[in-house]
């Protein structure tokens, strides 16, 4: 998740914006719940507090929805992208969806897409591709650039392919809705 926030910040930087990405934990171990933040602005960012009122939420591990109030503080017109092969309804999130503008909460089978392209359950880049399509806050080109900064060679290529598939999937979804 930390890498996803960092890539998002690189993508925003590539688009000429200021971005600040930081984790909320520290220990270098897998298995612990992790939150990472990314702040994007057109001017230099001075604020250093954790993001308590996000404009957008990317949930990489849907199990966390049972453990903590993931949506706390989300802005009324915020976006939510959840890594899951289930639909929003199937996840029991219709009530949350009702409180947000149409199309602002979507699920994306990012782990499955990652498995297809990378043969590994690493959905970071995939989620960013989907996020780009969903919100338009960053472009797919910027996401591609960011992936190239973080990964090299074939790993980068496969991640880019996976992100593109997610982007296409959610773009089609947006068009279908419209």
């Amino acid at each position, binding site marked *: 998740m930390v890498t996803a926030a960092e890539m998002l910040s690189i993508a925003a930087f590539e688009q000429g914006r200021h971005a600040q990405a930081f984790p909320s934990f520290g220990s270098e171990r897998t298995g612990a719940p992790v939150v990472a933040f990314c702040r994007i602005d057109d001017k230099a960012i001075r*604020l250093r507090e954790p993001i308590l009122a996000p404009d957008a939420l990317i949930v990489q591990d849907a199990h966390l929805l049972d453990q903590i109030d993931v949506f706390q503080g989300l802005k009324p017109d915020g976006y939510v992208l959840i890594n899951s092969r289930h639909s929003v309804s199937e996840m029991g999130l219709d009530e949350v969806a009702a409180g947000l503008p149409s199309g602002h909460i979507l699920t994306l089978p990012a782990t499955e897409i990652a498995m297809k392209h990378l043969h590994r359950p690493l959905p970071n880049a995939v989620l960013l591709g989907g996020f780009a399509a969903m919100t338009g806050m960053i472009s797919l080109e910027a996401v591609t650039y960011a992936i190239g900064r973080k990964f090299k060679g074939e790993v980068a290529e496969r991640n880019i392919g996976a992100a593109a598939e997610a982007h296409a999937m959610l773009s089609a979804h947006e068009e279908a809705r419209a």
Partner: protein
Amino acid sequence: MIKQTEGSQAVAEAVALCRPEVICAYPISPQTHIVEGLGALVKSGELTPCEFLNVESEFAAMSVAIGSSAAGARTYTATASQGLLFMVEAVYNASGLGLPIVMTVANRAIGAPINIWNDHSDSMSQRDCGWIQLFAESNQEALDLHIQAFKLAEEMSMPVMVCMDGFILTHAYEQVDMPEQAQVDAFLPPYEPRQVLDPADPVSIGAMVGPEAFMEVRYLAHAKQTMALDRIPEIADEFKEVFGRDAGGLVRGYRIDDAETIVVALGSVVGTLEETIDTMRAEGVKIGVLSIRCFRPFPMAAVRAALARTARVVVLEKSFSVGLGGIVSTDVRLAMVRIHVRGYTVVAGLGGRPITQESLLRVLRLAVADELKNLTFLDLDWDIVNRHLAREAASRHTGPLPEALLRDIGASAPRSR
């Protein structure tokens, strides 16, 4: 070149540009990425010639640095928290011997209880040891200060610690302008030692000094730090000429000229404070921020001048002296002798507790209305504190303290679908 990178990586690259000859460090969160970054640069040959030693403890790290610096090599190390404490004997030794070692302290709380998150207790614990202490507000300033630090240390023959907030800065990805090698070479000449171990001209370094001369030696360290008060702003000016931006110096004021309330702080929280001050200014409150960038030597005159005309000073610090109160506020108070001003100390962010705009607005509004207590702990849960005090009064066998508190915080187990 402008790049988007992690704070630690930015510092590593900046240090490498300074052409250090010996780097030795022992890993400790949250400094690890800095040293790993430098290790990679040495291994790849980008930073050469440079000896990178993997030492067996922080005490060894500072000791290796002492040997290396005494032999005339530009030397660098980094640590935090427990690591800084583990090397304290050597930290005093380095400054006592007058060796221009540069060290990054990735500010982190000191245990027990063990805590890896940010506060300033580590650097503050070493404020008396004779090292120069510089604090960075951002990753840009962190990298800039390291470049200035080598120049300052070597000119003064005095070690310098560059303090940057652990995780908040070290692990934050943000935009920085990384200098070119030619610029750093123009700014920072090769190290010319005042004293050096050299068979061509043998000297004995580190002999015992008795009562006849110890006070003079100690005083000279203080005199040199006092001289540094003049040199530090000059170096900041020289830096600006070469690199084109402001960094370092003694203090920096933000909207303090007509402020009736001035908040004094160090490090990254200054950024959040500026946002908060802008909000309050928009409401018509005359408030500003004074960032102390050089904590040792303490810029007594600069702080006094900046705060002389205000009505109210709020020192917001991530440090605390158990049994007394604020640490920074005590130093600030000393600078305000015979100036009448209402003074408040707000201890915040200990052990990495986030300092939010919301909380700052709340506490600063109280300060502006003079409804704040002299010593406040921002966002402290008094309920938990009082419950524990009652628990201790009622029973002897309360067990380890933090674990007892957890019962009140009500940590819950995850339910899975």
